[in-house]
């Protein structure tokens, strides 16, 4: 989970990294009277806010309040802004860069240090990578004196400042391990005109898998756009019932084919194929493990709660242990109730799939549902093609029927005249 600047700085303070003096502003009433020059910084999750005009110099409280009222609760860089940081304006002599992240190729943390900090560090990496130093840290040994020596070798800083930078490096690594960070960045780490080293900005990404031992219980966020009502409803399904997973991931999309998949890798492969064949998904969601039919039913209800659908695709790889009949019964309960006209393609195999087939075929007969059931004999991606073809045919039929209906309507009105 990515943190905002003020949250990341909270972690820095805990390990005693010197940070600029800031005040969190959630409403204009939080701004105290002042007369000097300060920085008002919009708190976003995305980077690059400075260039987008999210860091402003303000002189005095009046100016700060005026600007704050414009930013607060507005949308900035597609994010709803709820916090600002009224920060001390640090007098800059030099900007440095410090970062730690995992190298997925080496499977180790890498310490990044540059004496050319600032907004264009990525550009610098392309143009002059010699100005950026990288040091892999042997994890089970931890950060050692050798690592710091390597990073600061040939430094242009005075020894007094170097020792402050060294101290910040050690503390940043402590922060990285103690708070289960996936990524940490100080950009810039400022050398002030008074020869003090201060973190002026901060980026932190925490590991969600370590949430159980986080020292600071930051509020959960999955996306930087506001969650839609369907997404919120889907996320609630797992809260009441721990059997299996249903709706943990739910993303609203703008297509017309409703999707219920099982398993992460399979879901992505399926959507890739669906889009390649010309189909448009209305959502992304999955259920996995062995959820009871009630949970699948709840999720199906949310997935189908959308106008103008042209198909429903229920698909997954061959299940090891998921009870196919039980989970599909959850889907069927909703279908029987709503009796949609659009095609329904099911590609599921696993325990009790024979029972599932009989159940779906009976429902087809009894309720006139356009259900197509396939087991492992048709591949996952072939099922996507079948769905797209059937959905296209359905839309053509609908289009034709609409035309006929409007023709009839016209004749009727003419007759009345």
């Amino acid at each position: 989970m990515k943190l905002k600047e003020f949250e990341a700085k909270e972690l820095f303070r805990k390990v005693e990294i010197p940070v600029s003096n800031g005040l969190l502003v959630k409403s204009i009433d939080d701004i105290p009277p002042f007369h000097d020059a300060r920085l008002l910084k919009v708190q976003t999750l995305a980077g690059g806010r400075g260039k987008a005009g999210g860091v402003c110099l303000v002189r005095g409280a009046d100016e700060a309040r005026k600007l704050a009222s414009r930013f607060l609760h507005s949308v900035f860089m597609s994010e709803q802004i709820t916090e600002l940081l009224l920060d001390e304006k640090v007098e800059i002599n030099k900007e440095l860069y410090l970062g730690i992240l995992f190298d997925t190729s080496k499977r180790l943390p890498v310490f990044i240090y540059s004496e050319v900090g600032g907004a264009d560090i990525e550009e610098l990496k392309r143009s002059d990578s010699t100005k950026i130093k990288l040091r892999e840290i042997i994890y089970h040994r931890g950060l050692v004196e050798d690592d710091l020596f390597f990073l600061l070798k040939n430094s242009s800083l005075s020894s007094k400042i170097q020792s402050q930078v060294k101290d910040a490096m050690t503390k940043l690594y402590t922060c990285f391990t103690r708070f289960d960070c996936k990524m940490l960045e100080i950009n810039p780490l400022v050398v002030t005109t008074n020869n003090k080293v201060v973190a002026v900005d901060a980026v932190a990404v925490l590991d969600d898998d370590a949430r159980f031992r986080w020292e600071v219980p930051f509020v959960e966020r999955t996306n930087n756009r506001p969650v839609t009502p369907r997404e919120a409803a889907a996320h609630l399904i797992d809260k009441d019932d721990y059997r299996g997973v249903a709706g943990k991931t739910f993303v609203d999309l703008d297509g017309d084919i409703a999707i219920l998949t099982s398993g992460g890798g399979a879901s992505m492969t399926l959507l890739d194929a669906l889009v390649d064949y010309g189909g448009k998904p209305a959502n992304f969601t999955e259920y996995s493990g062995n959820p009871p039919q009630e949970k699948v039913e709840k999720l199906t209800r949310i997935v189908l709660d959308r106008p103008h659908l042209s198909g429903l695709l229920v698909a997954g790889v061959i299940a090891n242990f998921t009870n196919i009949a039980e989970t599909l019964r959850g889907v069927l309960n909703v279908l029987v109730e709503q009796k949609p006209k659009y095609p329904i393609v099911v590609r599921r195999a696993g325990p009790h799939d024979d029972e599932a087939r009989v159940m779906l075929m009976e429902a087809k007969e009894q309720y006139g549902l356009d259900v197509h059931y396939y087991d492992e004999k048709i591949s996952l991606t072939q099922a996507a093609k079948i769905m797209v073809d059937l959905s296209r045919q359905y839309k053509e039929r609908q289009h034709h029927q609409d035309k006929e209906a409007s023709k009839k309507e016209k004749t009727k009105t003419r007759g009345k005249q």
Partner: protein
Amino acid sequence: MAILINEKTRFLIQGITGKQGEQACQEMILAGSKVVAGVTPGKGGQEVLGVPVYNTIKEAQEKHSIDCSVIFVPPRVAKSAIVEAMEAGIKLINVVTENIPVHDMAYCFSLAKEKKVTIIGATSAGVFSVGKAKCGPIGSGKAKIAFTPGPIGVISRSGGMSCETSLVLSQAGLGQSTVVSIGSDVLMGAAFAELVPLFEKDKDTKGIVLFGEIGGTSEEDLAAYLIKRKEQGKPFPKPIVAFISGKFASNMPGVSLGHAGAIIEGNKGTRENKVKVLQEAGVVVAEIHHDVARLIKERIIS
């Protein structure tokens, strides 16, 4: 032949008394695996499906000579379980547990490098040397029907898709030598670049099929390895066909579709880049998943 595990491999299951561990134990025995011991602290002296349970790996190691440990313990204690296995001298560890904190795995990988231990996972569905042995839940229950013995090595970042990939191969008449589910966490154990050399040495493997995903660098690492081989004048001799999922997800930056690793960070790890570097390295990339069967078939026959 096969890679990593075969009918002679002696397995230990850590977390054997849990529901998942016991279920996998039964399925492993059914698939021909020699499960010689289990470990659950505090439950030493019990038996699970005839397999003796010990309190510590050290005790188990004294009675049995263990080649491979399979980890089923909860994520919070996974690090200590993996470290215990390494310290007991086990050289192959398959981590099935999901949601292990990345710092815990970083510690394990750094220690494993020093101790020359191979870790497969975490979040691995297991390893299946078809017709010989398997570890982990891969190919359990009805999913068995997807796997047939044969000449194709499979490596997959998705557990479910290791099964689906084997299924489309089997339906095309191509069985599998060994299927390895490597997981898709931010930090992964042995991945494509570390495993293809093993398939190269395996006489029964004629071709390799990969299932990759967006995020991470394991596809790029493989491409770099293959190019290095070419430059050394020893090009990789067996055909490799890959499918990289996430074309759709690439259009939704920042949205994770369930797999922790499948999050795009900058340009690295994009599908576009992975496809490009793999093709440059001589790997054939399928656009639709089920096409991997046809593409590998054409190449191993010619």
